[in-house]
């Protein structure tokens, strides 16, 4: 992609900042719908980073599956928030504690990342996009059993969701 190393990095950082700001929006927004909308922006940012990493397949699956899932989420948020006239308190009492814990976690993670001596990957010239066919080969040979299990899990989850959400007959 052209003379792209630095350009790609610039785009990466822009996407990262957008994504992180949106993620912050998700956890701090005072309105469930706003949080869901921010979440979509965060998702799009993640998908963009997938694209930077040249895994288009995962990026598109991310948009396709998460996109629909989040739309449903928004619908539920609408249903649940409209149920009340009074504004809801969206934060628990343990908010400062939670923020502190999250900050500690972040410090620990970044410390770990910085402290680790990463194996330097090959040069960018060696980099090859991963084709869909490769992913398919791996999924359907090495990971076929987990794949089937995921399929069964999905069916069960679907049934469970229908059962949970369906109205009771006798109530």
């Amino acid at each position, binding site marked *: 992609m052209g003379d792209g190393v630095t350009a790609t990095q610039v785009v990466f950082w822009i996407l990262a900042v957008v994504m992180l700001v949106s993620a912050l929006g998700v956890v701090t927004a005072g309105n469930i719908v706003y949080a869901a909308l921010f979440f979509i922006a965060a998702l799009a940012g993640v998908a963009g980073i997938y694209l930077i990493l040249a895994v288009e397949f995962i990026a*598109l699956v991310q948009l396709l599956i998460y996109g629909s899932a989040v*739309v449903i989420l*928004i*619908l539920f948020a*609408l249903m649940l928030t409209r149920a009340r006239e009074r504004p809801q308190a969206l934060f628990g009492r343990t908010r400062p504690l939670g923020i502190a814990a999250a900050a500690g976690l972040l410090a620990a993670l970044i410390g770990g990342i910085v402290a680790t001596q990463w194996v330097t990957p090959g040069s960018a010239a060696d980099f090859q996009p991963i084709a*869909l066919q490769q992913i398919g080969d791996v999924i359907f040979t090495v990971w076929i059993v987990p794949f089937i299990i995921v399929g069964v899990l999905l069916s069960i989850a679907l049934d469970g969701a229908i059962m949970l959400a369906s109205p009771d007959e006798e109530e």
Partner: protein
Amino acid sequence: MPDLVLGQFAGVDMPDWVDALLRIMFIVALMTVNAFALIYLERKILARFQARVGPTRTGPIGTLQSIADALKLVTKEDVRPSTADRWAFELAPYIAFVPVFLIFVPMPFTETWFIRDLNLGLLYVFGVLGLNIVGVIMAGWGSDNKYALLGGVRAAAQAISYEIPMLLIVVSVVMVAAGRLATDGDVSAAVSINGIVADQTTTPYILLQPLGFVIFLIGALAELHRPPFDMPIAESEVVGGYFVEYSGMRWGMFFLAEYTALFLIVLLASSIFLGGWNWPFGADVGLGLQIVLTLVKTSVMIVLVISSRALFPRLRIDQLMSFSWKVLLPFAIVQVLANGIIMAYGGPDWVVGLVSFALLLALFGLVFALTRTRKGGDTTRTIQTTPARPRVITSPEVTAVEAGGGD
């Protein structure tokens, strides 16, 4: 004419960024012209159906009507309801519009004309199109209008329901393409739209997947909010749906998105089912005829979609949902399974086509049977008549009362 190689827009060498800019301008120009043309076409076609003549005053036989409309929209005041949610309301048109704009990228107009030939073109189209609905929900929720909210919720439910059968059908098409390409070509082209089109030199996939074509068309009608699936914008129920509070250019953005999506989804359908730029009898027809073929196939389907607006009333939201989940989805799943089984056992193409056709007949039969039972009998006319029985009875007579009776 955009070419595949970056930095060579229309065959002329240039820096990458100029090339990218030119491609974007190409999309914008195409989109605008397309929207103008489609609006005019829709008005004229509907007028024909409805015993009218349509626009006649602006320009020769009204051809400049869309431009006049656009001018009006641009100069119109942009009103935002005072109780509307500011950000959601103002951003919604763009969020609804940008995904549609992005779908242009992998669309093949001829063998070598497209913005970019994406390897995962089909997946890309659906992945991006799904985001369109976010803008619609934002508009519905942000307008702080009950009609808009209902319209937005309806649109979301509808889009999600009809995306699934459509995606399954796309999967079945990709399966067919991969099966065919595995013998004489590169399998990885099976998810690329241009790869699929290139494979249809002699056999348009509508012959191999007739059920797929029908389900895709129905799903497209639903995605595009076209009758009989236009509940989100139902005039007589929710007044106009999610964009009821919009005016001026923001409203225009929704319409631009709608007509662009109409063109693109139909172009997609004609690419993966009707063979896109291919002449169906295998001859290589050259660049000029290829674009004519693409546009002719697309136009025929556009007329089909537009005419549905004149000929069908609107379904109810629960009927729409149950049609998607109880009829289309099972049939799409069966189609995928059938393709898989046939291809796993090395069945030839014509078996795939035949099975799909049988499934299509089953679908029609089922729908026919369902609606007939609903009507309760084999005829819709359960009206009886009783012969009028002229009989003479005393007509109302004047009854005398005391003058000025009452108070």
